[in-house]
């Protein structure tokens, strides 16, 4: 019971943060709302019994990635965004699309007979179990993902370097 109340509480914070992220006009407020979303998601994972995922969620997303977001916003000193009326296409197609999608998901979840609800805290998500999965069962996908991230980093370096610098190689006057 206590678990359920907490779960709903953090769920409400999560949704409120997500809505606030869209409503706020200042980028730094949006970034902070995103942090609130990440942190409340971590609390939800913790309540579901996945404590390792919860800790990693906080360390990686809230503690590292969002810090870079905030640094970027601070560096660019981004001001308030300008209000627009929004495109008519977004309203005409987007709102019904969201409604239809939500109804479909709810209907599927309620009417599939082979699905059953799992009590809160029933799944054990300790580091040992996750490590077994990552390094035995899903070793190849895990390693391939790391290569994917490496490629992304290299792409970022190439894009950020001045034109021609990559072809010339490292500058001699540095370090």
């Amino acid at each position: 019971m206590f678990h359920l109340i907490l779960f709903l509480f953090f769920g409400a914070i999560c949704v409120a943060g997500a809505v606030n992220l869209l409503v706020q006009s200042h980028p730094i407020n949006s970034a902070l709302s995103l942090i609130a979303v990440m942190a409340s998601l971590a609390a939800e994972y913790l309540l579901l019994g996945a404590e390792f995922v919860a800790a990693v969620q906080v360390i990686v997303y809230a503690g590292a990635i969002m810090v870079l977001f905030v640094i970027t916003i601070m560096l660019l000193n981004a001001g308030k965004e300008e209000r627009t009326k929004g495109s008519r296409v977004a309203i005409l197609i987007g709102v019904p699309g969201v409604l239809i999608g939500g109804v479909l998901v709810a209907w599927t979840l309620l009417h599939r007979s082979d699905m059953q609800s799992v009590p809160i805290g029933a799944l054990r998500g300790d580091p040992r179990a996750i490590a077994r999965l990552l390094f035995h069962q899903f070793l190849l996908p895990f390693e391939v993902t790391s290569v994917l991230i490496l490629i992304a980093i290299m792409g970022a370096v190439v894009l950020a370097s001045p034109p021609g610098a990559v072809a010339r190689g490292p500058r001699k006057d540095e370090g």
Partner: protein
Amino acid sequence: MPHQNTKDISLSITTFIIISIIKSLAVVSVLLTAVAYSVWLERKVSARIQNRWGPTRVGPFGLLQPLADGAKFIFKEDLTQPHVYKPLYIAAPIIALVFAITSISVIPFGNWVTVGPWGTYLQITDVNIGLLVVLGITSMGVYGIALAGWSSNNKYSLLGGLRASAQMVSYEVSLGLSLVGVLIMAGSLSLRDIVDAQGGVFWGFIPRWNIFHGQTIAFFIYLISAYAETNRTPFDLPEAESELVAGYHTEYSAMKFAMFFMAEYANMVTVACLATLLFLGGWHGPIFGPPILQALMPVFWFCLKVFFFIFLYVWVRWTLPRFRYDQLMAFGWKVLLPLAVANVLVTALIVAWRA
């Protein structure tokens, strides 16, 4: 949920809540006292290093100085500049202090103690991912500083905030990696298990602490990164007074400034506790004497080791000059990080070879 101890489950829910409240109050008040007296220690030790007396007027040896400082901070005028972004300007010191104090919640101070019919671990809560919880909470503390720098709307503050966040994010990598060796040796993320794995001695006299057990390099990497994480000299560039006035807290006065100050010292205490637990064997030490003394000795050893680290902090601050910013970044990424990775590799290979 955090895993419950078998010993805790036997308690009724009311007893559990009462014991938890008592433990939280006790730990927080001890932490805040420790914070106040680290400031006193810092002033005293720095004075002795510079051949001065330090605080002497308020109480014997200036021991009541922290109280006087607190009263001064409360009664000073709390200036809020008109050009600041108010919501975040007010929230920033609160964020910094809250996360600095919360991170103490999973730190164990000693073994199981029994008082009458009730027993508890000397720890607010035992989580099986305790170390990750501390890292997660301290990584959130960076927002307090970054937002303070940005919301002050002042170029010195902004530069200080930027420096602080870049430095803390960079050194968090080597700090985290320096801990991996310890984790491999202990095979657990629970701080209590890590301490328990360090009991006993080699050859009858050298304690089996991780610092003497193959993790010496990791210990020094941790120590250096911890200084950078807490923005202490020689890594105190975020508040380098010769370049940035006072860095991220330039625009803060009275209690808001005091909150940043307390957060910094609370972080120092947490980092010292972690170093004690992970590398210096936590509460392990020689235990002797009558039963009451035997019950208190572990806590005494723990506090003594934490005190040693705080003293070391002060000592280093008045010994080493400040780094230049590019040196700081180059040192973090080109020296500490490869060393930490090498330490992880070698530790993993040796543990795998022995297994």
